[in-house]
């Protein structure tokens, strides 16, 4: 038996998604930019998908730029918006230390090109305080990028409040909503942001698909030069079958979101409570209320997360720590460090992320084997430390 509890890394595609992607691979090979019938059909497929995505986030289809994924959407938003503001007095970017590397490393790259950046740390709750955010803003701030939900601990930032503060200072507000779209209701209107990134494979869509929603009127310089696809904002022939799959995933998410969230959060809470009750020295990282329904991040005192992760995999249970370096080995979580947790805790924490297909039996199995594994690994790690 294999149990998959790593939905924040990626999620299995829904059967409807697999069906449309494979069908359109065979039937709709046209180039969406072509004038002829093949092109028109492909274009119609893309427009359908655009509409489905827009509906999921309460947006207008004309404001959706289809991309190859969340990372590209983040790059396009941050690089594109800053490039459009080159030559103005606004030279600063404000972000947080818990962002995905797609945001953090993009901003680092801009810093090397003369932009200044303020990277905010967070309290242990993993939720940014409006006071800290307000203090970082000024009239030099060009772009703000604060994620909606965090991939490792699942905490949700008060994006609507933050975006309104940014607007007062005339700064553009981008939010990486890769981990919230499809898990909780997301409305770009209610959030009041200027740009929002999403990724298909995090909610049952295909990998290699994503979108940037960009408010009409916001200037953006395309990061990819080439053809005039996506209203001149993203060059390159669109991947019609995969993007159709993204559209279907968005439609399914919109239809089932409330039910799935209710069911998954009950399972997540059950797993969390079982672990906290049966394993000593455990604690949940980050705020437990302002959180997406499927995620829990738990620290295990006196244990290397790496060993527990491998031991669980050998038992058929797939989880993660959220952070992997280029080689694939694990490193202390930058998210937990940015929340002010000591590096020991950033090393002994594991992320369990559930999804639509997670069952009660699976949760019972995982909760059942964890205490024994943890006890054994702790004993071994104490012995090893004593020998050293």
């Amino acid at each position, binding site marked *: 038996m294999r149990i998959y509890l790593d939905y924040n890394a990626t999620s299995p595609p829904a059967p409807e998604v697999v069906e449309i992607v494979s069908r359109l691979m065979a039937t709709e090979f046209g180039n969406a930019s072509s004038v002829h019938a093949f092109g028109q059909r492909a274009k119609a497929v893309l427009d359908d998908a655009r509409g489905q995505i827009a509906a999921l986030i309460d947006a207008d289809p004309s404001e959706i730029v289809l991309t190859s994924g969340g990372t590209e959407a983040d790059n396009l938003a941050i690089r594109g918006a800053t490039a459009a503001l080159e030559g103005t007095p606004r030279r600063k970017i404000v972000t947080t230390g818990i962002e995905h590397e797609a945001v953090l490393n993009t901003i680092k790259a801009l810093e090397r090109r003369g932009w200044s950046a303020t990277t905010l740390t967070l309290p242990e709750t993993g939720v940014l305080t409006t006071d800290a955010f307000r203090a970082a803003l000024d009239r030099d701030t060009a772009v703000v990028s604060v994620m909606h939900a965090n991939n490792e601990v699942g905490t949700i930032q008060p994006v609507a409040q933050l975006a309104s503060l940014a607007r007062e200072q005339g700064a553009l507000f981008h939010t990486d909503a890769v981990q919230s779209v499809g898990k909780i209701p997301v409305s770009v209107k209610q959030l009041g942001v200027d740009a929002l990134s999403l990724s298909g494979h995090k909610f049952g869509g295909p990998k290699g698909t994503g979108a940037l929603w960009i408010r009409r009127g916001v200037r953006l310089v395309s990061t990819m030069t080439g053809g005039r696809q996506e209203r001149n904002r993203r060059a390159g022939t669109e991947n019609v079958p995969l993007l159709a799959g993204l559209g279907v995933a968005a439609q399914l998410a919109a239809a089932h979101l409330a039910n799935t969230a209710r069911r998954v959060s009950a399972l997540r809470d059950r797993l969390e409570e079982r672990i906290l009750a049966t394993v000593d020295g455990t604690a949940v990282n980050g705020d437990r209320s302002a959180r997406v329904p499927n995620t829990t991040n738990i620290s295990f005192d006196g244990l290397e997360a*790496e*060993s527990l992760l*491998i*031991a669980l*995999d*050998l038992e058929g249970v797939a989880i993660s720590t959220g952070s992997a*370096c*280029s*080689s*694939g*080995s*694990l*490193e202390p979580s930058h998210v937990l460090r940015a929340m002010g947790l000591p590096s020991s805790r950033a090393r002994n924490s594991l992320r369990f992320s559930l999804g639509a297909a997670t069952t009660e039996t699976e949760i019972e199995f995982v909760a059942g084997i964890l205490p024994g594994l943890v006890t*054994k*690994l702790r004993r*071994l*790690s104490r012995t*090893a430390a004593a*020998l*050293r």
Partner: protein
Amino acid sequence: MRVVVAMSGGVDSSVAASLLAQAGHEVIGLSMQLYDQRESADAFGSCCSLDDLYDARRVASAIGIPHYIVNFEERFQASVVRNFVSEYASGRTPIPCVHCNADLKFATLVERADAFDAAGVATGHYARVVFDEPAGRYRLLRSVDRDKDQTYFLFSLTQAQLSRAMFPVGHLTKHEVRAHARACGLAVAAKPDSHEICFVPDGDAAGFVERHLDSRPREAEVVDTRGRVLGTHRGVHGLTIGQRKGLGLSAGVPLYVLRLDPDAAQVVVGPREELEQVRLTASSVNWIAGVPPDEPRRVTARIRHRHADAPATVTPETGDRAQVQFDTPQVAITPGQAVVFYDADEVIGGGWID
């Protein structure tokens, strides 16, 4: 049986994993990330680089075994790199590979094996381990391929470690190992062996030591055995006993480094015949049997990896020390290197040269 195998991405450990899987064991591949790969993906050349981790992953996939990369950066820094720097700075010539193989790789592999309920711990070392029933203990033997034998790096293994150890390529020649890799279609079949110290791929140990010391090492005087100053050198840390090149001297006869004295900041040089010595003292001696011999023992002793072991008598002393008396003088006995004692093919023990 469940077996954990350390996979470096080289042909030897790849074939070790393949042989174990073919023998029906449940094999778990582990590769160790020993240093930070983020900043400079190609900074390190020989072992454990991203390319090697890639190779290990491809081999594990071809064999059909699970494979994990474990992060040992901190331990590698603490147990191998720090020791390497401090040894060089104190005028000794360390062999980090022994610390890495025994203190780090073997010890941590056994730990992980316990964590994953694996009875066996395998590596791609050229060595053999056999259980001696009458004596009730394990023996460590040289590999069948005498040219490739790596027991010099394994002298510090304990009976507890040997009881778990498996060296599947120890019974094969290098030629046979490569042939097996080819026959199994492993992509690493023709991969060259690694030689240099993996974290000093440019071979500039002195530069590495300087970059990792808190303060710049003192410049050293180069003197002859009568104390006459012949020149200066960047420090004792960049030199090793028996070295001739790089001293910046021009004398009538070739001069070799005889001794390094970090306290006096002196490099003592002399002609080749003065490099010869018949005695050495070893410390932190490990006896494979678990206990020292009761009386002086005739052995052959090896003082470098590439040294033909020479007949000697080893006398155990208290405090894990031993005296080694060679039958004939040996060239360039070097503090910091290991001395390993053999009885024919069997490793009796070994220690560090004082």
